[in-house]
């Protein structure tokens, strides 16, 4: 009975099965093309760069949970990357303070959006310029060096599970636990569904939105740190593409733009899928002219499958 209820609850989770299937299929295709991938080392190499994308997707998901959208997360990762490759290495205390300040800025952005009832899509677009500008101010040309401990973490080879999978699992589980299982997580998702109802439950919408944005900022900082660990250096333009990648990851993972429908585990899977759509190109023989098309096509396939399944159920 309890097991059955749990299974039912899992099945209720917006389309987790499909992204998982898509991920496995893509991975299977790659392994078929290159059997060497199917090893601890192979998976580590193949999936390594998913780590920043995972955190970017989780950050995006926190914002989408509030019914908003974040067009600034990519440049935000760049900014964290630049700070981590400079201040955090030279003056760790100042670096940490700066990163904490960034999380606070994200929360402040949430507060502003709430207090003035602003369209988040453009506030975050404006913020994206601010993040990029700050990144250039911190590090005018690419360079710097990651703190040794950060590079060591990124190069760590944990037993059993390759690091990117471990990070995906841990980050996904933590986000699931906080947002989907946790008691305050329910309130947070509620504001994406019906803010008035949450307010009438006696909750502060301001605090809730600030929490979600702070969570997004925190995930963004972790993503930027992961990026720095992998790159071992800083670059003010390095993160730009994460904005659209993270949005696509959340949607591919079963999230929806409106109504606070999100899935942390799905977002993590979505990040892996987005990484593989780019990777697949290096395993397939696609002419350079059509590589962008191939990426678009894969994205369409993954999402169309979801729609067909939905139609089948209806």
């Amino acid at each position, binding site marked *: 009975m309890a097991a059955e209820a749990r299974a039912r609850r899992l099945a209720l989770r917006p389309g987790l099965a499909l992204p998982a299937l898509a991920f496995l299929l893509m991975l299977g295709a790659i392994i078929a093309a*290159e059997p*060497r*991938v199917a090893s601890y080392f*192979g998976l580590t*190499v*193949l999936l*390594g*760069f*998913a780590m*920043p*994308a995972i955190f970017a997707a989780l950050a995006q998901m926190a914002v989408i949970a509030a019914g908003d959208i974040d067009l600034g997360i990519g440049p935000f990762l760049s900014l964290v990357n630049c700070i981590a*490759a400079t201040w955090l290495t030279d003056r760790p205390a100042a670096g940490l303070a700066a990163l904490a300040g960034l999380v606070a800025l994200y929360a402040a952005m949430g507060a502003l959006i709430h207090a003035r009832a602003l369209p988040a899509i453009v506030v975050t677009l404006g913020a994206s310029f601010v993040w*990029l500008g700050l*990144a*250039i101010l911190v590090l*005018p*040309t*690419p*360079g*710097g060096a990651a703190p040794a401990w950060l590079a060591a973490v*990124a190069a760590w080879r944990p037993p059993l599970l390759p690091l990117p999978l471990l990070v995906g699992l841990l980050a996904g589980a933590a986000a699931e636990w906080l947002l989907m299982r946790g008691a305050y997580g329910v309130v947070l998702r509620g504001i994406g569904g019906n803010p008035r109802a949450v307010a009438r439950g006696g909750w502060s919408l301001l605090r809730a939105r600030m929490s979600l944005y702070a969570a997004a900022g925190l995930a963004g900082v972790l993503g930027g740190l992961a*990026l720095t660990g*992998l*790159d*071992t*250096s*800083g*670059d*003010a*333009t*390095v993160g*730009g*593409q*994460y904005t659209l*990648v993270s949005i696509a990851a959340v949607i591919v993972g079963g999230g929806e733009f409106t109504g606070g429908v999100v899935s942390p585990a799905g977002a993590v899977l979505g990040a892996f899928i987005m*990484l593989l759509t*780019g*990777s697949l*190109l*290096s*395993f397939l*023989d696609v002419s*350079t002219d059509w*590589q*962008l098309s191939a*990426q678009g096509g894969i994205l369409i396939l993954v999402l169309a499958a979801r729609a067909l399944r939905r139609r089948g159920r209806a």
Partner: protein
Amino acid sequence: SGAATPARAGGRSTAQDGIALSNSYAGNGWRQQMLKMWNGAAGYATHHHIIARTKVVNSNNSATQQASQIADLTLQGWKAIVIDAASPTALNGVIAQACAAHIVVVVFDSLATAPCAYKVAYNYVSMGEMEANYVAKRLGGKGNVLEVRGIAGTSVDHDIHEGIVKGFAKYPAIKLVGSVHGNWTQSIAQKEVAGLLPSLPPVQAVVTQGGDGYGTYAAFKAAGRPTPLIIMGNRQDELALWQKLASAPGGYQTFSLSSAPGVSSIAFWVAQQILAGAKVPHTVNVPLLVIRQNELAAWLKAVPAGGVSTPLYSQKWTEELIAANLSGKAPPASPIPTGMP
């Protein structure tokens, strides 16, 4: 050039090897021409069994996507990976990984700084200096100059700008009266220059970074200002414009300074030479492509409308370049292509 001699320099045959290109961005004319030149060199090499296979992977201007693609190429066991990098620093981790797997890594154009990678390098600081010197000479050491820059935050933009500032430092009477970011794109350069122009005093010269000369000219023309001395790049429209201006009564003189997209063919042959066991310096300096007034007609004939002028460098030419780099002698002259690629 004569028949290819795969084993000439090092003695090892590369006939079984594969060389892959990882390109960070394919979305502008320069990169398209660069890919074409790669296909020219690599296609020639596979056809003549100098190498076994090649592959090109583009990433969508994303350093991490490119990094993961390089990691994939590493897994696939390519003998050499040639890279036009999205970031000078962000790929260093995977490049080190590839080197550790005994893969030859060659970076070119937009370089990565990883120490283990061979570099086929343009000296962009010197490009800025050359522009500044030419302008200063033409203006007689005095006048107002507008600077059109590239994409902010990139090392290429930074280096060229640095060279320009350094170059003009010797000429106190030359004033940089304005600076815009044209992002190496005609339409953006045009818009930015047009926006700034009304507020500027008369401008005598414009220093550029390539791909922005035509847009700059269009902005001056639209504002009804006299055409200043504009340093041209190597886009066909820039050269055609230059010729049009030059053939008008009164004439017009300038020069074109740019990085030739054919550098991908140099990088290809450098990788092949390394695989063949030839002695190759860690940094192979490539001369910038200079087009002077007297060569203009010949270059224009060799570039298709909308294209970017460049030679396709041969294996032999590359060997000479490597030798010159080793001996510290002057590099060979860039061949002017005789037909359209």
